């Protein structure tokens, strides 16, 4: 047991008040960095790459540019790596660079209702903060916007006590994103493409590089699958390689994932909140903030799917004057309004805020992944959870025999995606895995251990597109278990399951036919021989029995 403590003066309300302090969100996540996916060196490296690539893709698409991205991971010492991502996106305006890369909770995507990969405004800054914590090094950014002659080169760190960027160095440099990997030769001719705009981000951090199902390699591969409009270059240079190889040989290390689609996916539109998904406290806030002069105006202009007549109907049901000033609505009046909104029938939210991958592209991606005897995909119609539109898609492949990693006795392979981002970790906690386990695969022809994932030479791709994907943690690795989402996933899985079942039974029937024919032809002669031996018939008579019996049986059993 511990020795007796020194007496300590007890605190008072006043002395305790003196200790109260604001905690910056950076400090908070620095201490809790496992919540952001930086719990181990191996995972940290993957998380950093993912955040950078997600940002590059979002920016290029919003700017209407077909994205071209290179990712390099370079080992510096045993436990230290540098990650560098270059894109051909629109670039970042000089003034925004420090905040975007060195301030947590800063970004353009949190406040709007529109599908995008990033949503929290945490990721890339957190990666930089992790690099800074483990190596003391700043994040380097070079960015060039269209029309500018020179690029901005910036070195930035985060002041974690205030969650503010510290600009260490800012210069103008000659730079433009350039992609010309050796691997491009496979595309028939070697080409070097230079763009007038783009961004480079480079972070040094403690890390560890591994291969396998939870690796950066896998993330890169899956990203290419769900983004068929993306041209991606990727290389990993280990300390040993860097020492032993010439620069030209290092150039050969690039792996290229070629673009297969020459146009961008449909751009998702931003929408306004739907009144049925809004909680009382938010409703009150929105009325306070409304630019409208009247309650009716506030309802119809700040929300989607509320027409003028609908707004009147709501006001009437709540016993409020449609012309009332929305900023002067009392508390009990808002409660009445809230209740009225729930009762009035409204159109579902618009869904052009979503951009699903689509069945064709899902199938194309799947064909890259696995050589199969059968492929199928389904994209569900959009629907809503808590007022947020979302849409799910599922693709299924039944592998040809002999495929590596797709064995008939193993659990099926499940690839999870949210807003086109691969999810690698925490599959067990994910609503997608739960949905896969919940479908009755036995009736579709797969073996299915109770409570688990089905078994078979099957690859499943699941995608959810939403204006706000509900993750189980800030590291965005698993989808939370919303019943509406599980229901949609289940319908989609059942749909591909039924198609699989049709395929399997067709195939089974053909095999059965062949087996039956052989079987009949194997035993009929023996039956005839028995009769012939008993009756002492000659060979000709015996052959006639064989013919007659074969004829009869094949007519019955083979022409169905």
């Amino acid at each position, binding site marked *: 047991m511990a020795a007796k403590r020194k007496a300590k003066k007890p605190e008072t309300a006043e002395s305790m008040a003196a200790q109260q302090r604001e905690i910056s969100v950076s400090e908070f996540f620095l201490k809790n960095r496992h919540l952001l996916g930086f719990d181990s060196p191996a995972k940290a490296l993957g998380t950093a790459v993912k955040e950078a690539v997600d940002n590059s893709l979002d920016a290029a698409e919003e700017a209407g540019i077909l994205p071209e991205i290179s990712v390099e991971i370079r080992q510096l010492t045993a436990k230290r790596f540098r990650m560098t991502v270059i894109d051909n996106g629109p670039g970042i305006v000089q003034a925004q660079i420090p905040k975007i890369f060195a301030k947590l909770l800063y970004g353009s995507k949190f406040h709007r209702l529109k599908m995008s990969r990033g949503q929290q405004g945490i990721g890339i800054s957190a990666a930089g903060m992790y690099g800074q914590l483990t190596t003391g090094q700043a994040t380097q950014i070079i960015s060039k916007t269209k029309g500018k002659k020179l690029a901005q080169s910036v070195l930035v760190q985060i002041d974690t006590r205030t969650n503010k960027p510290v600009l260490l160095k800012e210069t103008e440099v000659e730079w433009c994103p350039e992609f010309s990997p050796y691997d491009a030769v496979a595309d028939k001719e070697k080409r070097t493409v230079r763009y007038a705009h783009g961004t480079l981000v480079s972070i040094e951090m403690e890390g560890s590089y591994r291969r396998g199902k939870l690796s950066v390699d896998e993330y890169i591969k899956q990203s290419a699958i769900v983004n068929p409009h993306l041209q991606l270059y990727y290389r990993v240079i280990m300390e040993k390689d860097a020492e032993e190889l010439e620069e030209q040989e290092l150039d050969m290390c690039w792996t290229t994932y070629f673009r297969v689609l020459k146009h961008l996916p449909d751009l998702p539109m931003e929408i306004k909140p739907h009144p049925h998904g809004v909680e009382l406290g938010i409703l009150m806030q929105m009325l306070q903030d409304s630019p409208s002069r009247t309650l009716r105006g506030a309802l119809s202009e700040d929300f989607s799917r509320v027409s003028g007549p609908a707004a009147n109907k709501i006001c009437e049901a709540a016993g409020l004057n449609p012309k009332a000033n929305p900023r002067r609505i009392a508390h009990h009046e808002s409660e009445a309004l809230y209740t009225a909104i729930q009762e009035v029938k409204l159109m579902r939210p618009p869904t052009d805020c979503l951009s699903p991958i689509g069945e064709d592209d899902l199938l194309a991606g799947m064909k890259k992944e696995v050589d199969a005897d059968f492929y199928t995909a389904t994209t569900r119609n959009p629907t809503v959870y808590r007022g947020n539109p979302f849409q799910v898609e599922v693709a299924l492949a039944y592998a040809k025999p002999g495929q590596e990693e797709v064995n008939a006795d193993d659990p099926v392979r499940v690839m999870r995606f949210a807003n086109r981002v691969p999810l690698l970790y925490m599959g067990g906690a994910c609503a997608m895995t739960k949905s896969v386990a919940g479908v009755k695969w036995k009736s579709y022809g797969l073996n299915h251990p109770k409570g688990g994932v089905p078994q078979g030479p099957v690859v499943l791709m699941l995608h959810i597109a939403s204006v706000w994907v509900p993750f189980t943690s800030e590291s965005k690795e698993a989808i939370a278990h919303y019943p509406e989402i599980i229901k949609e996933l289940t319908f989609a899985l059942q749909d591909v399951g039924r198609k699989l079942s049709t395929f399997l039974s067709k195939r089974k029937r053909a095999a059965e036919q062949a087996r*039956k024919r052989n079987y009949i032809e194997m035993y009929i002669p023996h*039956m005839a021989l028995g*009769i012939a031996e008993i009756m002492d018939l000659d060979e000709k008579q015996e052959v006639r029995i064989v013919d007659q019996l074969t004829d009869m*049986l094949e007519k019955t059993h083979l022409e169905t």
Partner: protein
Amino acid sequence: MTAKKKSRIVRKRKPSSAPTIVSKQVASRQILDLAKEMYETIMKKRKKPEMQFPIRQLSNVKYDEKVGHFEILGKVSTRTLSYTTVKTFAQSMRLLATTKNDLLDKNDIAGKREIYYNSKSWDACKFDEQPESDNLLDDMEAMLGINREQLGYIPEERGGDVTGRLTVFDVNPATGKEVKIDCANMGSGAWSVPSRVEHLKFQTKARFVLVVETSSLFQRLVHHQYYDTANCILVAMSGVPTRACRRFVRRLADEVGIPVLAFTDGDPYGYCNIYRTLKVGSGSAAHINKYFCVPQVHYLGVTPQDVIDYDLQDATHPLNDKDIKRARDALDNDPFIKHHKEWQDALNQMLKMGVRVEQQAFAKHGLNFVLEEYLPRKLKLGKFLP
């Protein structure tokens, strides 16, 4: 044996008439007819051939005390040639051919396992496991209505042991000469019943036949020359009597006309399987029961009442689930048990007592209690279960 003595042991009973035995020529002809009919169906009527079998279950038999055994009713199952039955048809026809050409026509014999091996020369049509050929032998029996011993098949199982005051006239199969066997003169051994008994003849002055379940008790009786003391013939069944043993006892009973008494363990298996099968046959062999039952037999013991009368409670075993299920099934479904109130009472008494008892349990009172006390008392009383 005098009428006076007989009456002390068992109530009078008309011996049932012996069933007909077919010759090998007739059996061979039957197989030929069957093949011809099939040929006609295929080649003339241009229809798929069928095979018909009587259904061999308790639900397809009736028990008439006058007939004496389970008689088969009309229910029939039909097997039509199809994809699923073609292998069975092929094997059946080849089996019939072998039976006719190699056994009947050549006057040879074969064991079940030999026939299984014999099929190994049939290529794809061969039997993969012996149960397959065993099943088809049963089918063939049922289809022809002749027990397989008459077709030349010999059982693997032995036929039981006999000692006591009986002379058996057998025939040397090679020379055809008569062989005379004195079963009282087997020393401490016994005469082992052969697998085929149709040709045997008997001569005896014994008062009754005692058929015993266990070899151990049989040996005790032989050791103490019980067959002399009681003037009887002793037969040991060693569990459920084999077909040869049942047929032997039946032929003995038919020929010499003395009472037959059964002495088994006092459990549902002893009553409903061993004794009932010995007396009236079984559901699964319904089509050939007439050959293999012994309607003359009566049940001596061990009865549930004996447990009480001979103070055997602490030498019993509790009934297990299987025993109880067997007894309940018999009470519900067995036409023989359902016919005899005495048997229903005995089974119900056993179920109520919750125990079964073995023949050896009498050893509790001394090793020779069973032959010095129990058997004499039961025989003197002359009250047996039907």
